[in-house]
């Protein structure tokens, strides 16, 4: 049984999705999605434990061994991402029930949960597979269901946001497809381990270089690295807020995982960062991303849009960590993938609670919210601290390692810019907190008096996530150890 867990990780959400369609009842389709999501989460935890205890797991799908068949390949890196994706999906799904009930018509709920499960299946598939073409297939499964999920938004601009994401996302995925094609032409294999072994000896190095360029562009579009982030702010702003919480925690993180897998495991660190000076492209984009996007976030009046721009900035930190290409830099990047996933998901969940009760998230009119929704506001403040990187929160752990890593390499300017961008985060998060907690209501309408806290089924998952992120903030060594293992795996190549 336990040998089959890598396959079950994908199969459980994949099989549950059509069952959801057949159920059609809003409540029971939610139950079905919930059960599948929880199972996937448990499986991913067991897989992580096994990987940490026994090393790499290789699973031949359908019993066909590696060169001719598709192989699932799990090491510390993707086991951690599997836990992140399935965990956030399970937690946000609990929350989604009430949130979606309010914003999506009841007769469409089963379709919503079906798309959700397909999205989870696609994201987990991208992470678990060891076959380059399989990455593309799962990428499209997750992307198509993501476009659908975004278009469920109440505002009609959700439709255009989804369409723009579809056009850009498809171009990105097509670039990845071209890249994989050239890799196959140059090496004659699609298995990542074989690719890594054959690329250095390939006769057609030019084809490998073309593949490298196309893959880089494709993945950078999908992970919304500045200047290719144009699809993200509107998609995050107008999607149903449960979807945003899920996507912000997982979708771009999974694309960043693909980036790591291709650059470090397939092409190898020396190829990506030695010969082809990827850090000449990646590092400026990352640094410009986290400085400029933090600056833009300060001027946003829609809470969701502010957090969306801050997401692009956080992707910048992660990519900056990757482009250092050292053990500590990679560790910082990977830790921030997990930490930021939790923080951003809980922030968007808090925003969803506000949206549920107040009906809008126009920042300047959220004055005195602390009186009416104390629990939501406290969760928002704690997670906001995590976003800034205040000590004892997860944000501190990852930013500290990032600054340490850049100092270790002697790049003082990067460390200074990280600090500068954190100061800007204080401004944009602080502004919201100031309005929520300290500003007196200008009008004393009937709605501004009395408590109207969000329902428990939304608050509990929010606090679970906040609690987990606080735990990892205080006990930073737990995530750092997994990330450190993952980083040394990546630098050492595939075994």
């Amino acid at each position, binding site marked *: 049984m336990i040998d089959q867990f890598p396959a079950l990780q994908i199969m459980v959400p994949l099989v549950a999705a059509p069952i959801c369609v057949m159920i059609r009842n809003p409540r029971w389709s939610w139950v079905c999605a919930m059960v599948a999501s929880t199972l996937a989460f448990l499986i991913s935890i067991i897989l992580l434990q096994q990987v940490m205890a026994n090393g790499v797991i290789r699973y031949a799908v359908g019993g066909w061994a590696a060169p001719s068949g598709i192989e699932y390949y799990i090491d510390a890196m993707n086991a951690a991402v599997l836990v992140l994706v399935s965990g956030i999906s399970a937690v946000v799904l609990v929350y989604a029930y009430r949130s979606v009930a309010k914003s999506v018509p009841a007769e469409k709920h089963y379709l919503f949960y079906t798309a959700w499960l397909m999205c989870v299946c696609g994201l987990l598939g991208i992470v678990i597979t060891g076959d380059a073409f399989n990455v593309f297939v799962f990428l499209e499964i997750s992307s198509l269901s993501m476009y659908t999920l975004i278009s469920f938004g109440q505002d009609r601009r959700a439709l255009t946001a989804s369409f723009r994401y579809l*056009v850009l996302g498809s171009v990105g995925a097509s670039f990845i497809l071209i890249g994989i094609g050239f890799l196959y032409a140059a090496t004659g294999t699609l298995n990542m381990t074989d690719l890594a072994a054959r690329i250095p000896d390939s006769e057609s190095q030019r084809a490998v270089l073309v593949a490298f360029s196309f893959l880089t562009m494709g993945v950078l579009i999908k992970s919304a690295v500045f200047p290719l982030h144009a699809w993200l702010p509107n998609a995050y702003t107008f999607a149903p807020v449960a979807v945003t919480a899920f996507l912000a925690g997982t979708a771009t993180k999974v694309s960043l995982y693909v980036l790591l897998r291709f650059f470090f495991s397939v092409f190898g660190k020396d190829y990506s960062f030695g010969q082809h000076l990827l850090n000449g492209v990646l590092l400026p984009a990352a640094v410009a991303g986290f400085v400029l996007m933090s600056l833009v976030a300060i001027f946003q009046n829609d809470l969701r849009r502010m957090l969306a721009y801050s997401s692009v900035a956080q992707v910048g930190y992660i990519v900056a960590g990757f482009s250092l290409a050292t053990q500590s830099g990679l560790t910082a990047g990977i830790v921030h993938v997990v930490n930021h996933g939790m923080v951003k998901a809980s922030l968007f969940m808090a925003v969803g609670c506000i949206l549920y009760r107040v009906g809008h998230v*126009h920042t300047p009119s959220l004055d005195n919210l602390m009186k009416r929704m104390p629990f939501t506001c406290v969760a928002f403040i704690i997670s906001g601290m995590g976003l800034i990187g205040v000590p004892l929160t997860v944000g501190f752990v990852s930013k500290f390692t990032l600054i340490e890593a850049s100092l270790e390499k002697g790049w003082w300017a990067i460390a200074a810019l990280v600090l500068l961008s954190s100061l800007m985060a204080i401004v944009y998060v602080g502004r919201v907190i100031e309005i929520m907690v300290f500003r007196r209501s200008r009008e004393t309408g009937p709605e501004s008096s009395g408590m109207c806290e969000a329902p428990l089924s939304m608050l509990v998952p929010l606090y679970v996530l906040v609690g987990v992120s606080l735990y990892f903030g205080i006990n930073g060594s737990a995530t750092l150890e997994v990330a450190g293992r993952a980083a040394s795996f990546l630098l050492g190549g595939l075994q």
Partner: protein
Amino acid sequence: MSQLIGLYSYWIVIVLMMAGLYIMIARYNLVKKIIGLSLFQTSIFYLYITMSKVDGGTAPILVDDADYVYSNPLPHVLILTAIVVGVATSAVALALIVRIYESFGTIEEDELKSIEAAEPDA
């Protein structure tokens, strides 16, 4: 010169790909954008099929003949999957366009932008 003619298949790929990309950028009509996207994806299918071709090769069927020359079947299989993905993408895109037309009354990108800009945030 022989490079130019001998690799004509790859030239077709490049022309199709650039035409698709150009349509996506230059046309404001959303349906035309999707036509461009489909053309772009089709060019990639063509690229895969081209590189699997072996000179003088035929269909890959198992026969008792050591000199039997056949084309590489794997890219064909991959492209079957990619075609399905392409069809699904077009279907989702067209469904979105229908919904956009229903709620905005237009599918011209420039008009959509000005409508959206007039709507308040939050």
